[in-house]
């Protein structure tokens, strides 16, 4: 079964590892015909598309889970929602097609709605100029922490679209489409870090992942190939 859930409110402050455990327990409470892993510590077999950073909210978090019997997707959704804690809910599910690749292999991009709250009001013009500057830059280097220490990466190819959708006063909202693959992609907080540097200000950033786009499966939200030119091959 492939399903998508929402994560909002207090529960968005739980880490990805904890979310996995929350889902496992919810599935057990829902009394689903679960497929279990082998070994002394069997747990339901699930696979997640990608992790959502702790503190981000999301409404399109896709995951897959193994069932031992066929089940109507509506029934799956209904039972899961009766067992999920406040702040998490499944809004859609479908039975995976035979031979389908894992979600992690198919994912290409994600859309982020980002809210910025600043102490001083910001002008719409300033915001647009800053975003424009990022989009026209040929290279945006940022430091990234990795296993082998700090590493410099170019963020520009990871930004597919970016625009200001609300401005005025001390809150601004941005709509950013970034690449997303199993092993990484655009980091919304890193994007905002660069943007805030350009604006020469500081503020509180809230990130909401509103959409995840895939290739190669008709039942999943489709990634439009028109932007593919800017997508580095995985």
């Amino acid at each position: 079964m492939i399903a998508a859930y929402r994560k909002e409110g207090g529960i968005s402050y739980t880490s990805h590892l904890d979310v996995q455990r929350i889902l496992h327990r919810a599935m057990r409470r829902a009394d689903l015909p679960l497929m279990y892993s082998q070994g002394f510590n069997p747990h339901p077999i699930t696979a997640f598309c990608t992790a959502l950073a702790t503190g981000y909210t999301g409404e399109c978090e896709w995951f897959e889970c193994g069932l031992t019997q066929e089940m109507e997707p509506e029934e799956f959704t209904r039972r899961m929602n009766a067992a999920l804690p406040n702040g998490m809910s499944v809004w859609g599910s479908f039975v995976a097609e035979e031979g389908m690749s894992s979600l992690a292999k198919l994912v290409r991009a994600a859309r982020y709605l980002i809210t910025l709250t600043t102490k001083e009001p910001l002008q719409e013009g300033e915001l647009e100029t800053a975003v424009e500057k990022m989009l026209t830059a040929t290279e945006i280097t940022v430091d990234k922490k990795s296993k082998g220490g700090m590493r410099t990466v170019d963020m520009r190819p990871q930004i597919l679209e970016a625009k200001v959708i609300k401005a005025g006063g001390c809150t601004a909202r941005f709509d950013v489409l970034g690449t997303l693959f199993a092993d990484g992609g655009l980091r919304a907080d890193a994007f905002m870090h660069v943007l805030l540097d350009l604006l020469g200000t500081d503020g509180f950033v809230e990130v909401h992942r509103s959409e995840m786009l895939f290739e190669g499966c008709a039942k999943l939200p489709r990634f439009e190939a028109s932007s593919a030119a800017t997508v580095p091959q995985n």
Partner: protein
Amino acid sequence: MDTLELKRLLTAVEKPARYTGEEWNMIRKEGDRFRFALCFPDVYEIGMSHLGSRILYHVLNDMDEVYCERVFAPWTDMEAELRKAKLPLFSLETKRALGEFDVIGFSLLYEMCYSNILTMLELAGLPFLASQRSEDMPLVICGGPCAVNPEPIAAIMDAVVVGDGEEVTPLMVSILIEAKRQKLSRHETLMRLSKLRGVYIPSFYEAEYAQDGHFSKLVKTNGDAPDRVRRRIVKDLDTTAFVGRQVVPNMGIVHDRVAVEVMRGCTRGCRFCQAGYIYRPVRERSEETLKKQAMELVECTGYDEVSLLSLSTGDYSELHTLLPEIMDSMACKRVSVALPSLRIDSSIREDLEKMQSVRKGGLTFAPEAGTQRLRDVINKNVTEEDLLTAVRAAFELGWTGVKLYFMIGLPTETDEDIAGIADLARKVSREYYSVPKEKRGKGLRLTVSASTFVPKPFTAFQWSAQNSLDEIRRKQRLLNACMKGVRGAELHCHPSQLSVLEAAFSRGDRRLSSVLISAYQKGCRFDSWAEHFKPQEWEEAFTENGLTIEEYALRERDIDEPLPWAHIDVLVTQEYLKREYDKAKQERTTRDCREGCNGCFGKDDENDCRVP
């Protein structure tokens, strides 16, 4: 609280899920109700692992007119953020400021969490001392095992619950609701509470000290208060079997599983063990109740592990029928059953065979002392032969991880006893290597853990001196040297400085309230966390108040000396404890009271003990 403010806080701290609530089975209530803040003076992961607090949460919320919410000690990063933002500490359920509750109730499980009480009170905007809190402020109460000697925190608490809390706490709350309705003064309210068995009102008594600086007596300042406070006990655990729908944390916690309490109390009578004395008599839950409870809890939580909890689950009289039945009923749900404690005796192979099917976690045995002589002194009735038979069975069944618990600094201990710990470890290691290679699991992991003995009130060793820090460290070095060459073994010695402070507080008197406040003001927090423990600051706090840690921890009490906790009646009599202290010195053991009554309760309370 403003949501943006809350989000800012949560974004700024480590492990924000400690403060968000919203877990499965969290209780929600609307409208105006009597507000009880159930506080645990340590972080969420620890507090949520405490069964007693979980029971109280559901018992109190079972009262329609009450909304009981949880509050945990903020980790140092959250404390700093709250102070920076000038925000109060808040509850998990409704994010209400702690100072706005009607009652603030703390669970006290270990002395080294006391400094966190002060953090929580300060972040609630409340004065530390009960005498300085005004009529419109919340009542501050506490309970838990530390409450048997409430004197070190007597100045802070308005009321203290001594003994089992699940019956008396709702009774107290009913009185408080009535008092609020009638707009009674705090004094009148406390007076009413003092009529309940198990409730101690510290402000109704005053401590006096002798010329030599020792505690001399506690004087009643309110004629209507009881002379002695009798521990509260729940007689039948089957009638109080209600545990509610256990909250399932969103983040990992220390004991992340369903916990079912199979019995309360222990019949073994280990002379150092406070829990062994203050939870008497043994009260078992019936097999039926346990099976039902375990199944209900597994279904409403989704947990995949059940732990059968008690001080000594191996002693549960129906264990050999309960264990296979409960394991069978859980197996189809893919739930494993954990036994936190096994009895080291002839039936252990049988128990281990039953546990074969589940994951082979480490096995823990607690011989506590290295020689038979010292085990007789502490009345730990386990022989070397028993232990070796048990570990041999475990090794033959494929276990490779064994943990042995010992204590250093027990009364009458000599260097021979220390060497005995290493000898025992060596013999255990040899047992492993004597099992044929093809029969045993790969790679022995033998952990020898040595903690420091802390004399506790209401034990046979409440008069005993603790070893000095130098002496403990010398013995640790000696043990380390003796352990050389024990194959597959690793030695862990617990930091002893903390144990000395714990000893001071466990046998402390009322003067320690000021020491605690001084230490807190010097920055002491989370003392049981090695990275936060500040021994220097604690030492200064004692000095500033004209006291020393050594005076409390190291001094052997005279057998007739007045004890600061003597007004608390835990039902086990002081006469019995004296008898046990004498027998310890003579290296004589006392039988398990399942084999016959040893007369530990006084005449008046004999009937409270149902063990024949």
